[in-house]
């Protein structure tokens, strides 16, 4: 397999206009304790009908990034392009039309559904805001039925309330609501982490089916690496507000460039019960994630990294690129001492 690791400037974009193109997004918040840097120059790209997995531990900025993608948070710097358009430049009717194209599925299927509304009302609520795509009264019933059917609920469920559904069914309902406006992109924030394992698989299968049938793209935020590995085409790994690695899913999982990614992968327990490989293949990380109020100089991961040297403190790490299979799609990582993989 052809493979080179070399330094490169981060501006060469791949060919073909992506659905989502985020460049250099920065977001800081002020609080009594000072200035918190939530996003520090984040780049992101997502193609149509694809799934981007967003991975990182708490405080890495993945939820702030989701809020930026939904235009709920305006970045201090950087650009967001959705199908070539800057959503932050839109106003009025244009903005409303744009909002239809991006929807969200939330983590907690209990808190994100109004307990007083029936399933039909919940699914139909987006149409009350987006009146120009609101179906007529008869069409509306049919459309609700279609959506229920699409997510594997029954027609008779239309009149039931959230408390009459199980956790998995509620999450199906949340997905149906997200689909009501026929979006191009759904941001899924930990969509299965509140669900039991046996139910989680049902919802993951549903999301995959919907993508095949409707061509919708997903930004899939999860702390569960085995789930991300299963659903994502590409993976972006974040640490303390920065993307530290990005690439095709198999590449990132099988041959991580960044020590943090490697540690994250090794820390996640696996089902392998063969023994020896188990507990001891784990790369122990020192300490915990530093405060986002006080991000370490140079490489932000250096305080926990087993490969850290003086250079990691003194200089920002360069972008490393490993060209895979012909080179049209590089695997990137930010590190002074990227992991070498015996090829």
């Amino acid at each position, binding site marked *: 397999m052809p493979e080179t690791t070399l330094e490169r400037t981060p501006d060469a974009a791949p060919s073909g206009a992506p659905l989502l193109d985020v460049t250099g997004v920065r977001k800081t918040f002020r609080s009594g304790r000072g200035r918190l840097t939530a996003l520090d120059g984040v780049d992101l790209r997502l193609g149509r009908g694809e799934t981007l997995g967003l991975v990182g*531990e708490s405080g890495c900025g993945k939820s702030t990034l989701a809020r930026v993608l939904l235009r709920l948070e305006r970045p201090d710097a950087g650009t967001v392009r959705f199908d070539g358009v800057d959503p932050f430049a839109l106003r009025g009717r244009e903005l409303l039309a744009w909002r239809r194209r991006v929807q969200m599925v939330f983590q907690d299927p209990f808190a994100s559904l109004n307990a007083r509304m029936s399933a039909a009302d919940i699914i139909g609520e987006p149409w009350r805001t987006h009146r120009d795509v609101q179906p007529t009264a008869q069409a509306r019933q049919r459309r609700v039925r279609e959506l229920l059917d699409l997510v594997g609920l029954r027609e008779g469920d239309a009149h039931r309330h959230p408390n009459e559904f199980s956790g998995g069914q509620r999450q199906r309902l949340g997905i149906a609501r997200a689909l009501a406006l026929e979006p191009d992109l759904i941001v899924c924030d930990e969509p299965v982490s509140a669900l039991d*394992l*046996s139910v989680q698989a*049902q919802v993951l299968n549903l999301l*995959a089916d919907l993508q095949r049938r409707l061509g919708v793209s997903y930004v899939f935020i999860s702390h569960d*690496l085995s789930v991300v590995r299963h659903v994502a085409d590409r993976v972006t790994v974040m640490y303390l507000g920065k993307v530290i690695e990005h690439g095709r899913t198999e590449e990132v999982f099988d041959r991580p460039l960044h020590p943090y990614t490697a540690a*994250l992968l090794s820390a996640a*327990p696996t089902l392998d019960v063969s023994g020896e490989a188990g507990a001891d293949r784990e790369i122990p990380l020192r300490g*915990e994630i530093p405060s986002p109020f006080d991000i370490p100089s140079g490489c932000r991961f250096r305080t926990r990294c087993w490969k850290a040297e003086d250079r990691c403190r003194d200089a920002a790490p360069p972008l490393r690129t490993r060209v895979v299979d012909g080179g049209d799609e590089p695997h990137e990582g930010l590190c002074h001492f990227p992991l070498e993989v015996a090829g």
Partner: protein
Amino acid sequence: MPASTETETRAEERPADDPALEVRGLCVDLHTAAGTVRAVDHVGFTVRRGRTLALLGESGCGKSMTAQAIVGLLDPVAEVTGGSVTVAGTDVLRLSPGKRRKLAGPVLSIVFQDALTALNPVQPVGRQLAEPFRIHRGLSRRAAREKAIELMASVGIPEPRQRARSYPHQFSGGMRQRLLIAMAVALEPDVLLADEPTTALDVTVQAQIMRLLRDLQTEHRLAVVLITHDLAVVAQRADDVAVMYAGNVVETGPVREVFAAPRHPYTRGLLDSVPEHARRGERLPAVPGSPPELSAIPAGCVFQARCPLARERCVTERPVLAPVGAGRSAACHFSEELAHA
């Protein structure tokens, strides 16, 4: 008396190696406004010193309530209605509340999932960690405080002397979990129950906490009951497993054997649901439906509604936990079919 797990008796019959914890036929009923339901139904297992048994199951399966019944911390609406919990030769369910409390700490202790609610928010952690030494050992304030600081150091809290004056909210999630573990092992118990000890934590911190638990277990030869919904945690950290579903233990045995060749269709379904085994984009073999409500548990097999093997006998007759090989049991009429699957 229903069947219970006796994982190692055949392998080594040394009387000195008596189980540290033996639970038999444990039943817990919940008294709710809608009536009484059974949340834990004849649950049994044994754990030896230095060994870890995982109680594995999804939410509502009764695993946490089993743990609470063992340590005597059940919610007032829950009541133990049968069975025995033998620790160090004594059935603790027969003891008076006062005598039982004396065992909490020196013999039997528990680590809860949510460290923020398990710690007292208005007391410095040093004082909380000193409490067991004051109450059970009658140490002076000063001596107990020294013990607490030693304890904090032993679970890897940096600068313990200064940090002893901090309050729980001033610690990170991982550090709070360390404090809880410190408190649980303070009096060197024989048996430690850990109820989802890492669920709320990030992956890298999770690994640190599991390593700490393992080190403490080796050091003190603790018998550990690990309550979890995470199959991978079970695979990596437990010796034996008891799989629970709707208040019942449906399969039990050594983790390696159970995970390599499950003999209950629910265990099989759980293992198949883990995305790890499937290729990317492939459909996961999901278990259809969801677990039954406690008020609507069927008369026959508890898993019948979701089971691919279910047939008439499963509707009429509840399968009991029966041996399916050395040290293994499963509660399925047709577990034989899985053996050749």
